[in-house]
């Protein structure tokens, strides 16, 4: 009975989930823009939900410039000049979407390089020659629209900003459709991040998911933080910003990642099988290697001591590396007295193998 009622009745309001989805879309669209800018070699600091949904600050001093992006996700139909110009009866100025975009130009004047409305939906309007705008048009300068459509937008700006308006709006106000679908933008972004990692090197594709998670987490943090009394740009950046240098640091970290035992084990296993090892001893060694690796990564004292002892052994005998892993293990085993740690789920042999494989890169 209760279940039937829950299905049959319509919820009074779903504004929460709609807003959450819009917020999520905004973060993903921002991530796409940041990765694109990084790949294009742009130097930037991106600020989230600060004066606008996303702003890009480039250059400094006299060369400083700002691009403003207002993210407008929309389920259903395309945007039209009328919708962008629509002004609700109540509320403070500016009331229209295009007016809010123009607001940045009004406030920051010469610093503005671009003020863009970005949406998942395309703009349904006409060019001066009567042809229609389409989903694949990319960035559309609003002044490039037909006189009628542009006129509707300018009228809304004039209504939001009584008096004269900055003539540079004709060069700076743009509309851009971003190729993210409301149903699948998360998967699309993950695909974009995978392509980003693969472009650095095919072997980094495996880092795509964590890279996406880290970026999303950082953008979410910056978006959700309320800027509070920042004294200078570095402080503001700490609270709300993500720079190209941060992305570069992520890429460097990705490149520095050492291989885990699960990645190099197949090579070792093949050699050990050729050397006569049977299934069970192989499985035991594989598990012990993982146990040692994990204990060391977690900073367990015994594992760290063993790591230190093995590092010293390698430093004392750098010339014992053999053509084969089995040979190298045997040589180091003979050179040092590697004991099995008491009460640990791994062996000295497993620790030696992990350290050898990591030292071989």
């Amino acid at each position: 009975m209760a279940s039937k009622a829950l299905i049959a009745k319509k919820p009074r309001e779903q504004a929460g989930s709609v807003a959450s989805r819009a917020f999520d879309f905004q973060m993903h669209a921002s991530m796409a823009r940041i990765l694109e800018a990084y790949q294009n070699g742009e130097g930037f600091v991106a600020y989230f939900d600060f004066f606008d949904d996303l702003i890009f600050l480039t250059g400094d001093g006299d060369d400083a410039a700002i691009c403003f992006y207002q993210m407008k996700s929309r389920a259903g139909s395309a945007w039209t000049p009328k919708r962008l110009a629509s002004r609700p009866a109540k509320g403070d100025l500016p009331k229209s979407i295009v007016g809010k975009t123009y607001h940045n130009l009004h406030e920051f004047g010469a610093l503005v390089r671009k003020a863009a409305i970005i949406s998942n939906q395309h703009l349904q309007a006409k060019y001066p020659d009567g042809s229609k705008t389409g989903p694949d048009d990319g960035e559309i300068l609003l002044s490039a629209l037909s006189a009628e459509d542009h006129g509707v937008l300018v009228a809304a700006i004039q209504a939001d900003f009584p008096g004269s308006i900055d003539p540079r709006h004709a060069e700076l106000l743009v509309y851009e459709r971003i190729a993210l679908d409301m149903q699948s933008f998360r998967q699309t972004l993950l695909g974009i991040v995978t392509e980003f990692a693969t472009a650095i090197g095919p072997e980094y594709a495996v880092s795509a998911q964590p890279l996406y998670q880290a970026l999303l987490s950082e953008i979410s943090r910056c978006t959700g933080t309320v800027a509070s009394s920042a004294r200078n740009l570095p402080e503001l950046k700490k609270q709300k910003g993500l720079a190209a240098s941060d992305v570069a640091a992520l890429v460097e970290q990705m490149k520095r990642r050492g291989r885990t035992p699960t990645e190099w084990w197949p090579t070792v296993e093949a050699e050990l099988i050729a050397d006569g090892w049977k299934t069970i001893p192989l499985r035991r060694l594989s598990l012990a290697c993982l146990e040692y690796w994990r204990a060391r990564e977690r900073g367990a004292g015994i594992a760290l001591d063993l790591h230190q002892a093995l590092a010293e052994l390698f430093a004392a005998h750098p010339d014992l590396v053999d053509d084969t892993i089995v040979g190298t293990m045997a040589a180091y085993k003979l050179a040092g007295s590697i004991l099995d740690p008491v009460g640990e789920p791994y062996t000295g042999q497993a620790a030696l193998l992990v350290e050898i494989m990591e030292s071989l890169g």
Partner: protein
Amino acid sequence: MTNVRFVGLFLLSRTEKRALKVPLNASRIVIQGGNGFGKSAILKSIYETLGALPQKIDSRWRAGNVSSALVFEYQGKRYTAVKALGMYALFDAERKLLFSGQQIVKEWGPQLAKFFGFKLIMTDRDGDIVVPPPSYMFAPFYIDQDMGWSRPWSSFQDLYLPDSTRTLADYHSGLRPDAYYEARANLAVDRIALSELEASVSTLRDAIDQIQQIDEGVSPTYDMGEFRAEVEDLVRESETLLTQQREYRREISELHEETHLLQSEKSLLERALRELREEFDVAAALPDEIECPTCGQGYANDLADRFALIQDEGVLTEAIGATNIKLTRVREDEQQKQDKLHEIERSLRRIEHILAVERAALSFNDVVIAAGKTEAAKILRSSLGEKAADAADVRYRVDKHRDTMTSLTSAKRSGEILKFYRALLAKYAFDLDVALEQDGAQSIHRIQAARGSEGPRGLLAYYYAFLQTRVKYATATAFPIVIDAPNQQGQDAVHLPQMLRFIFAQAPADAQVIVAVEEASQGLPADVDIRSYGVQRRQVLREAEFDEINERFSVYTRQLLL
């Protein structure tokens, strides 16, 4: 893959006293002639000489009682196939008869299949395993003007066995290669043998049981030597089973331990993954620089540091997936071994029961009473031992054949073949201006022919995508491609030349291509040999060539009459 190349075709009508010699000693041949001038009669005769029956043979042609001889090269040697006097025959280069047959299905077909190494076997409507007639060997290589442009796999009229379309496509594309059908044929033979042996074993066991139960409590043994031999046999069988039991227990124990170790590995990886995520979530909530509450030392916690905490996530997730696959495999393996072990234990219990009876005390009287029965049991038991051993051998072979068949039809291999075929079909459809339905998911068994002039072009794209797939993945002998009248459904001045160019340009490398058209269009490759035939309408054979060709045929027909 070995290729067959045609060298020449000889047609002879002793009824009309006319004959024709058609040289086929070129790689690319166009046979040109007006409507009704006999092009199709020539093309239909090529594979008909080898025993494949083309669609719709003209009644006048049939009335002419035309004999045919097809000269071809195969594995570096020259042969002549002859269809004459109601028989099919194959002669070597010295015109010596190699084999012949009157009945295509029972006599000629199996011999020709063996000659060309054609391993396909099929099941007929009665459920019997048969070697299909020669049409099945040549099906991908001939496009008949009457049916071949309407639907695929219908250019010959005797593709009559059940599920022919699917079987032909699977065999010729390499989805089920020669080795698969070889294993299937052997499996069929061995299954029959096994069924007979199992029936014998069961009958013998029943017979021995019945003899033993004639007088309960009396063992069917009348002398101590025989008694001892019987017990020794049972003990030996029991020892063999015990050895197998020990071996299976050891293997199961190892598999069990392997399962346990893999399970531990999986749990460890899952735990590591969980911990990475927790560490990351904690770090994400902390500022970029953290001060240790104990020692006061500062630590960096910027974006790259936090990323470092979870950067192994992808690797670990993949590793968990791989471990799951291994776990499934090992568990299945363990279950199979458990089943075998249970089988062995059942056999052991049976032997223990028999031995318990054998150990029962025997009186002299029992021995005397049992004497007659024991003699019979002794003979039966000896026979039982042989049959059981033979059955075990055959059972082993049956398992091997099944394994071979499974390995040759793996999803990975099939996926690769279908991917290759679909990519080519899409390309050829584009080249021939054909719109495909269900782009990228077309069946390899058939193609839905579109209506109008697009239909024949779609079929041509299918035939060629299939032939190229065959070249890459199948191992069976390849034959020349014979295409009759591609100008079907009113191809216009653009599409007909496009089809002809395509036929030659996209044919598999080294394939001989023979095409019949009303008029050879412009733009054909320079190396295409264009020939015209037909004295007048409905008369392709020539009186002038009768004597020479009749003489040639006499050498063959004399041997057939003998």
